[in-house]
């Protein structure tokens, strides 16, 4: 390490690699808790960055999205490659799953062709060894002209060596890119040379990519580069015609495509790299444990049964473990509410603090323990590799509904296993290549039981199905799935018609997830939820409290109530009668407020589904964020009652004669299905690239939900 690098600020390196190569684990090991999650500007691909330090040198680590290739077909690939071209990090650390070295090197070769300074991290060395693989790392490093470090990221092994190599490689500051030239055989080499010369002559993109690399992308049919070429003028047309000629030649003489030849030669290059580097112990060619497990876990009959049991088990676990801490948090907020009530004089400020802030935010934060446990379980499914099996097992079913096996992920993240959130769920749909299946997934993922809707379901099923709470919630979740699938089918056969896209997916080997990794995942998502509660929900709670408080009752009505109270007191009426009067006054005030008037105005329609004006207020607030529904109900009930009472919302509802089973079921159904929250709508607009689809989901879902709620309410009321 020299003084210059210490003074010139942190060096930036990018972490790249295939999905399932242990990239995230290595990133966590390198950066510890000093990390930041965001999105790349303009696109919704997740951007993680963090800092590491070695011998006084600060290293800024960017975690690029996992990709198999650098051809710009998916957003992830495009982001990875544009990041390298535009930001020019000092080096790329290519994280390679040593257990599937050959295929992982396919991406590595593309980095070499790009010429960016490269370090290889051969990760999961323990698994590779237990598979009976022996690697000559030094020989590989010599052939690649790049440092190769063996790591076991889950145990932090090799981390220091890797940091040392990074510092070593970037010691003299930014190194120029040195692209590797691979021969692509007699059919492609001449045309490559010719195209490279033309690209160099016109300096087309040469500030971003090596000329030969651009030529290769043309031969691979890269959409982005082709479009850039067209904008650049005549050169684009010339290059395209060269590609067309050679493609026709390949088809006539070899019955193949240029991109197939390119892939063949790359794999050939990899095979020659690995000669003498990789030896398989043939005696140990036993079937991997993973394959054995798949025989059971994806078995025709056992597989689906285990999957259903597992998902149901997650509910049971969440509720059994979550109940106690949830009670604590609730007890804390009711203590806080009564303390503040006791300490402050009655008035608007106290009302805002107790009814707006504490009841509103407390109602949301009360569910943090449950949501954290749920996220922990999802992190386990993802990190263990089981999630990919779910996609594999369900693809055939999903295809019937015009979706893709990979739609499972967005659905599950959105709350397919209750407790998710539609915002990351909608973002997860970007792994879907087909715009049609992606759109169908985007528009139906908000039907799932997200963490924000969950509080209401838990509350109502606790009151109306006290002995079957877990089953009730399971049914709600299944209803979300059914609605999503049916609506997807309807959409795919009407507004978004078109053929299905390929399902070429890797099944990663089963792994026992690390506690640390799961904790990081759980914390990231739970923190998002808490942050939302502390900011957006807080603001909306106060806003809604204001709408429920102003305009206040006119002076004459207030006096009327005070005179009646004074009369009653003079007559020596007991506390109960006085409380009843106080309640009446609260109700009158709420009805007089802006929110009350809106709620009443909606009643003629909403009555069809069994909703009264208080619920209407809550549901209107729910357009902003679903958490608001329960906090608004809380505020409505706490404003509408006497001051002394600090009962929980659940007790208040169970005592209210207006609440019955049909209303509870109809409300749960409506909340499950109606318009996505504001943040989700923004996410849909971004992912689909049009506000039209976002508005469509707002209108369509609300009408759809209302129609179902009405029919269920009317039906249930008839039966009773």
């Amino acid at each position, binding site marked *: 390490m020299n003084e210059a690098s210490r003074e010139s600020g942190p060096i930036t390196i990018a972490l790249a690699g295939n999905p399932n190569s242990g990239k995230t684990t290595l990133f966590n090991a390198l950066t510890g808790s000093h990390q930041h999650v965001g999105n790349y500007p303009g696109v919704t691909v997740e951007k993680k960055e963090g800092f590491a330090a070695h011998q006084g040198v600060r290293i800024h680590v960017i975690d690029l999205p996992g990709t*198999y*290739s650098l*051809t710009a*077909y998916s957003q992830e690939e495009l982001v990875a490659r544009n990041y390298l071209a535009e930001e020019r990090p000092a080096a790329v650390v290519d994280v390679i*799953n040593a*257990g*599937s*070295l*050959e*295929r992982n090197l*396919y991406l590595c070769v593309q980095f070499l062709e790009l010429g960016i300074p490269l370090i290889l991290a051969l990760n999961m060395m323990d698994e590779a060894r237990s*598979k009976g693989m022996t690697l000559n790392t030094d020989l590989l490093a010599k052939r690649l002209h790049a440092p190769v470090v063996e790591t076991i990221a889950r145990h932090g092994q090799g981390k220091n060596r890797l940091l040392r190599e990074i510092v070593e490689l970037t010691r003299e500051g930014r190194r120029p890119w040195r692209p590797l030239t691979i021969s692509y055989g007699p059919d492609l080499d001449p045309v490559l040379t010719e195209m490279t010369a033309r690209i160099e002559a016109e300096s087309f993109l040469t500030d971003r990519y090596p000329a030969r690399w651009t030529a290769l992308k043309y031969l*691979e*049919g890269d959409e982005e580069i082709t479009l850039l070429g067209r904008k650049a003028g005549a050169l684009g047309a010339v290059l395209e015609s060269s590609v067309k000629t050679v493609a026709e030649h390949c088809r006539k003489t070899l019955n193949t*495509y240029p*991109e*197939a030849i390119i*892939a*063949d030669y790359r*794999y050939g290059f990899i095979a020659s790299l690995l000669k003498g580097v990789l030896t398989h112990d043939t005696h140990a060619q036993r079937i991997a444990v*993973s*394959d054995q497990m*798949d*025989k059971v876990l*994806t*078995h*025709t*009959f056992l*597989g*689906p049964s285990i999957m259903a049991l597992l998902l149901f088990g997650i509910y049971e676990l969440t509720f059994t473990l979550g109940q106690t801490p949830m009670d604590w948090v609730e007890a804390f907020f009711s203590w806080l509410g009564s303390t503040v009530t006791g300490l402050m004089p009655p008035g608007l400020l106290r009302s805002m603090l107790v009814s707006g802030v504490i009841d509103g935010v407390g109602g949301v934060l009360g569910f943090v323990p449950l949501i954290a446990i749920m996220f922990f379980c999802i992190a386990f499914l993802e990190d263990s590799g089981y999630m990919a099996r779910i996609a*594999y*097992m369900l*693809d*055939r*079913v999903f*295809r019937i509904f015009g979706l893709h*096996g990979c739609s499972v992920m967005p659905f599950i993240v959105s709350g397919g296993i209750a407790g998710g959130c539609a915002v990351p769920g909608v973002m997860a749909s970007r792994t879907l*290549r087909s715009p049609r299946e992606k759109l169908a997934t985007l528009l139906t993922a908000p039907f799932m039981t997200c963490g924000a809707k969950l509080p209401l379901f838990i509350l109502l099923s606790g009151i109306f199905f006290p002995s079957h709470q877990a089953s009730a919630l399971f049914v709600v979740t299944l209803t979300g799935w059914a609605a999503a699938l049916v609506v997807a089918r309807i959409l795919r056969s009407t507004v978004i018609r078109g053929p299905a*896209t*390929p*399902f*070429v*997916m*890797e*099944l*990663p*080997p089963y792994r026992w997830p690390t506690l640390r990794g799961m904790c990081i995942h759980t914390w990231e998502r739970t923190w998002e939820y808490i942050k939302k509660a502390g900011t957006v929900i807080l603001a909306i709670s106060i806003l809604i409290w204001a709408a429920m408080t102003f305009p206040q009752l006119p002076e004459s009505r207030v006096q009327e109530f005070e005179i009646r109270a004074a009369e009653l007191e003079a007559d020596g009426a007991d506390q109960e009668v006085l409380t009843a009067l106080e309640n009446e006054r609260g109700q009158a005030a709420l009805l007089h407020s802006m929110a009350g008037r809106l709620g009443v105005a909606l009643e003629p329609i909403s009555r069809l589904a069994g909703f009264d004006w208080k619920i209407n207020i809550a549901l209107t607030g729910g357009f902003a964020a679903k958490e608001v529904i329960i906090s608004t109900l809380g505020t409505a009930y706490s404003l509408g009652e006497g001051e002394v009472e600090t009962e929980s919302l659940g007790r208040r509802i169970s005592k209210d004669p207006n609440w019955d089973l049909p209303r509870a079921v109809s409300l749960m159904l409506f909340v499950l299905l109606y318009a996505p929250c504001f943040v989700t709508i923004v996410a849909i607009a971004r992912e689909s690239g049009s506000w039209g689809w976002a508005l469509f989901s707002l209108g369509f879902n609300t009408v759809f939900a209302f129609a179902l709620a009405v029919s269920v309410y009317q039906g249930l009321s008839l039966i009773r």
Partner: protein
Amino acid sequence: MNKTIPLRQMQAGQSGVIAEVASGGELGRRIRDMGLVPGSPILIIGRAPLKDPVALRLKDFTLTLRNNEADFIQVHVDE
């Protein structure tokens, strides 16, 4: 005896060597990125509960494909 059959017709547990990938465009590229190129030995691990997609093992990892995508792939199998 040696013969070439479409991947779709292979049974669970059967192995072979890829002879041809007759697909260009996006599907072809996805298949090749994953390492399904002529000359690669493969083993059928099994099929999803509804017999589709199919899971197969390439040298060192497991991959899934739908049957109608497997139709583009011809495999040399031993008999």
